[in-house]
């Protein structure tokens, strides 16, 4: 068991280093430590599950060890910027002032195709519209376009607009009343029943979903009649 423990610790760090060396494009949306955890834990759980000749603790102890290591890495990443850079890496600028930094891309094994794909997915088909592009530690690309290519906002044209952004709260979810959301929004069951009655509905069970926002606007979608 000590062997399993020490092997888990060694393999965890080897995989972490390996993923860090592979560059950000391999990671996707997870941090390296999270990806390592996901990769190993599923396999560790599967082995004692299928092979009855292997004791359960041979799977449980390495999993617990990995979770503890992951918690410790998260803790130290939170406390130390330098440690966080070591574990998660740093964001890399791959376009600066419209110029593609090829060395930075090569260092992260990030290809032109991937760059163009990421830019297209964010609505930039023309590279000349991009002033800065940053390859984040998660492998995603953040794009900052030139002002001339930026979407027009009320701020740009100095237009006075009323703030009408509100957060809708789910009150009925597939026929189930979300009582906690209802009371947190300042409403009660009587109000809900009245809302249903106004829409010619007799029960929350007839509602697919219903939301209310901070301004009191209610959106109600009734369930479709089943055949």
């Amino acid at each position: 068991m000590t062997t399993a423990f020490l092997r888990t610790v060694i393999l965890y760090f080897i995989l972490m280093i390996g993923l860090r060396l592979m560059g950000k494009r391999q990671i996707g949306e997870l941090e390296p430590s999270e990806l390592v955890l996901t990769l190993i834990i599923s396999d560790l759980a599967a082995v004692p599950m299928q092979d009855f000749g292997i004791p359960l603790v041979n799977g449980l102890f390495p999993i617990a060890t990995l979770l503890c290591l992951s918690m410790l890495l998260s803790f130290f990443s939170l406390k130390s910027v330098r440690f966080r850079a070591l574990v998660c890496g740093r964001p890399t600028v791959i376009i600066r002032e419209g110029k593609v930094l090829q060395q930075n891309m090569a260092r992260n094994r990030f290809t032109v195709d991937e760059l163009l794909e990421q830019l297209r997915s964010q609505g930039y088909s023309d590279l000349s519209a991009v002033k800065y592009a940053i390859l984040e530690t998660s492998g995603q690309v953040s794009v900052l376009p030139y002002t001339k290519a930026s979407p027009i906002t009320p701020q740009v044209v100095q237009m006075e607009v009323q703030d009408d952004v509100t957060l809708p709260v789910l009150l009925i979810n597939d026929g189930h009343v979300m009582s906690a959301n209802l009371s947190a929004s300042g409403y009660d069951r009587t109000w809900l029943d009245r809302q249903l009655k106004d829409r010619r509905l007799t029960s929350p069970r007839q509602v697919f979903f219903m939301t209310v926002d901070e301004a009191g606007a209610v959106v109600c979608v009734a369930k479709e009649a089943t055949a």
Partner: protein
Amino acid sequence: MKACVIPIGLLAAILGFSLWAGRYVEVRTDHWIALLETADQAAAAENWREAEAQLQGAYRDWEGSQTFFHTIMAHEGLDEAETLFVGAAAVCRERDDADFHLMLAQLTAQLRLLAETQSASIRNVL
């Protein structure tokens, strides 16, 4: 620092238990090997009654530890040792000195292997 206490404590507990389990297996197997050696010496002196008693004592003790052993070790090695124990008992009843000595040598080697798999050594880890 509080958030560190649980993972560090759990890691220490796992490592501590693993080291203890490895040491426990070593102590138990050493005990059985000593009993088997006594049985072997008794058989060599044609004292088959004593040899059988020592072997049965070792087997009873072995059986008593099997629940714990099966929770920490791969069952394949344990099953092999179990087979050798049963084989040694059969040969002991036949009172065949050469076969009994060979069977005990195999059983002792198997028990040593079991203990070795649980020891915290560079050879095992790497």
